[in-house]
């Protein structure tokens, strides 16, 4: 009997605790993008645009995959075609005036060199990303080392 009572008591306490905690937190949610009221529609953030086209962007650290300095809207990468390689492959980069893909992209995980782009390097946007005109969400003081920045 005592056992049953204690179970019921603990359940009621638990439910109470959950409801009070929900009440205190239902007012608003805080995130890096600011506070938003849960019971209201938040206004849509400003639409960010990809940089249309620019010069290559310098790397910030040694192993950084170079950023994509242009828009890639509707560029498909699938088993039938890869729009990136139509300019950045070793066959096409001269004519396209593009940067050629790194030699490392022909290696499989055991460092065997293949005759074509390795499957693990084929999906370009896994590592290489285009940039939008968005300010950094968090301030930081990161500086590239002189060997990279040249300053």
């Amino acid at each position, binding site marked *: 009997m005592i056992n049953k009572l204690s179970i019921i008591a603990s359940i009621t306490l638990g439910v109470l605790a959950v409801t009070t905690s929900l009440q205190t937190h239902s007012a608003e949610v805080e995130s890096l993008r600011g506070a938003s009221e849960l019971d209201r529609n938040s206004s849509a953030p400003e639409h960010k645009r990809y940089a*249309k*086209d*620019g*010069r290559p962007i310098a790397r910030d650290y040694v192993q950084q995959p170079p950023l994509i300095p*242009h828009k890639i809207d*509707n560029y*498909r990468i699938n*088993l*039938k*075609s*890869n*729009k990136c*390689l*139509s300019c950045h*492959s*070793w*066959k*096409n980069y001269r004519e*396209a*005036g593009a940067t050629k893909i790194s030699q490392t992209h022909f290696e499989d995980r055991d460092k065997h060199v*293949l*005759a*074509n*782009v390795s*499957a693990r390097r*084929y999906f370009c946007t896994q590592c290489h990303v285009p940039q939008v005109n968005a300010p950094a969400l968090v301030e930081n003081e990161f500086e590239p080392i002189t060997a990279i920045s040249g300053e």
Partner: protein
Amino acid sequence: MNSNKSTECNIICRLWEKLKKPSLRYSLGALLAVGFVAGIIFWGGFNTAMEMTNTEEFCISCHEMRDNVYEEYKQTIHYTNRTGVRATCPDCHVPKEWQHKIVRKIKASNELLHKALGTIDTREKFEAKRLELAGNVWKAMKKTDSRECRNCHDFEFMDFGEQGRRAVSQHSTALDEDKTCIDCHKGIAHELPDMHSIDPTGVIGSN
């Protein structure tokens, strides 16, 4: 044998005999006027009927077009864009000038045949044929110097100052090398076929 044929004239030959004789009942003016009006009605009706086959609604009234190429095109800039100016199916796939348009329309009878045969009536059949079908369009566009693209996109009126770095360098060399739009702009309105046979270095897999 010969005399027998001339006496027992069939319906076509009798009509021909009648057509050969000059009219005795109607004036030349009346015949000309009736012929003129009938000509306008026939010609107008013919062109109206042809234009009815030149609309997006007509193209996607077949599921082969609606479920495959049209769905893909809906994701592209020629369907939806900043200013809402669109290029619909016939804008790119049917020539504007009459003499070229009528040739294309006659060639389209082959498409009717394959519609009846059900050559691409499933997604799988369409995918299997995609390289061949895309190749046909590329070949046609290469032959006509991308005539249908140039109805809107004319090199003469392109302001390179408004274009991005890549576009300027590509378009200015293309002008010198007599390249045509389709040489580079493949797969802009529909998905590409398996490009292995076109450029093996551009697709996954060994050469």
